[in-house]
């Protein structure tokens, strides 16, 4: 019994220790981020990196999510004879929930994993050591630009997802299901308010921090060899995705 408690205690301490390590990494990066010199060019390159890698997949998932949502919600609403609410129902679901979450998950799969692999390779090929040996702070060159870029790009990609999703919902509702074109948007106008848009924005901003933070952390602490990098990449995607969903629920319940 005592040894069991001992083991449990040790396990708990090691988890705490690791968590502390992960948070410290973020704090150090944020501290570095607010102190000059700022690496503006690297930041721009990373904005392009995130955008380029993820735009297409965000467009596609946005379109199909909107279409599926319109079909499913229409089916439900028809049971109550309130098809006119299709527009706002699709819009609210996308703006508050699916837009931020799905685009964050897509960016994680596309850009987050690539980021982890890239930083992991820099780690194992001693490029991070080389930066250190030049008396430079690797966080400033490799981590900060990514976090700042993600905080900018995530809301933008989410906005694109939202627009595409809502418009595809419109196409399905009006062209396919025969809803009148006016109702879809006019109802949306009255029911969706700024608070909903803000919730989506807060979510996507925080997802940006989560994904870039976890992806960078995993790459920066990758183990040795190709295997170390591939393990880091998998773990970055899994951890980011789980955190996105957990944090989404948490934010959703306090911002309701």
């Amino acid at each position: 019994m005592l040894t069991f408690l001992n083991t449990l205690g040790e396990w708990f301490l090691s988890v705490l220790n690791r968590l502390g390590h992960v948070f410290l990494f973020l704090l150090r990066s944020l501290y570095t981020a607010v102190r000059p010199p700022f690496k503006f060019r690297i930041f721009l390159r990373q904005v392009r990196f995130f955008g380029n890698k993820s735009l297409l997949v965000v467009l596609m998932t946005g379109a199909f999510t909107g279409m599926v949502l319109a079909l499913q919600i229409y089916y439900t609403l028809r049971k109550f004879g309130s098809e006119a609410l299709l527009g706002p129902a699709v819009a609210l679901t996308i703006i508050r929930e699916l837009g931020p979450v799905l685009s964050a998950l897509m960016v994680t799969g596309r850009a987050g994993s690539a980021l982890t692999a890239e930083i992991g390779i820099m780690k194992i090929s001693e490029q991070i050591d080389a930066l250190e040996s030049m008396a430079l702070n690797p966080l400033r060159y490799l981590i900060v630009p990514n976090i700042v870029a993600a905080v900018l790009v995530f809301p933008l990609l989410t906005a694109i997802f939202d627009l595409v999703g809502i418009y595809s919902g419109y196409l399905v509702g009006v062209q396919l299901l025969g809803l009148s074109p006016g109702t879809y948007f006019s109802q949306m106008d009255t029911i969706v308010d700024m608070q909903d848009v803000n919730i989506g924005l807060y979510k996507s901003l925080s997802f940006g921090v989560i994904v870039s933070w976890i992806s960078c952390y995993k790459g920066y602490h990758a183990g040795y060899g190709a295997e170390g990098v591939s393990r880091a990449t998998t773990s970055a995607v899994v951890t980011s995705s789980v955190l996105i969903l957990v944090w989404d629920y948490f934010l959703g319940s306090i911002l309701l």
Partner: protein
Amino acid sequence: MIEIRGLKKSFKDQVVLDGLDLEIGSGEVVAIIGKSGGGKSVLLKHLIGLLKPDAGTILINGVDITSVDVHELRKVRQQFGVVFQGSALFDSLTVFGNVAFPLRERKKLPKEAIRENVLEALEDVGLRGMGNKYPAEISGGMKKRVALARALIAEPSIVLFDEPTTGLDPLILNSIHRLITHTHRKYRFTGIIISHEIPEIFDVADKVAMLYNGAIIQYGTPEEIKNTENPFVRQFITGSSEGPIETL
């Protein structure tokens, strides 16, 4: 002046450095020789604070880098230039960008001056016209030479070379050695060269240290090393399979 005292380092239960002492005077060029996997690169990484020892001290011009905070450490590192064993070129930058990097980030020279310096450095390592290539597009030997140019460009006062010539053909090997000697004459840096090039390295180094079983077992001039009585050193420099060192 570099003074290493009682340096110990283990990874898990593998002892790599076991109470290593070594003293290197300013402006000296010291070669470190020893078995592959013997801990030479590990020693070098301790010298710029990339690894923390389990015990022991490393004084760089009087500053113990094993106990200073990161800001102090960066100040000390500004004097260094390092050639890593795997070159460690930044693969998002071109050859030109790599060599220019220390000047751009640390010296803040005007653009034109940087350009001139970099082109000259590339010329020195025989890579004229290669500036626009990316590290993935050049051979291993060329990478080594880019790394060498990058390490020397900011005129560091201490330069660490981790096998700067491994994988190069004999002609380039000799010209790299000449380049090291030549730049050393010009700038008088303190140099530490890890090398397997025996006997060529004896012409470059003022002193040679042999690392064996985690400690320096002989430290002396190339002449002393060549005429050594120590059976371990003797066997190592002659590459003989007969002797106290276990071979495969």
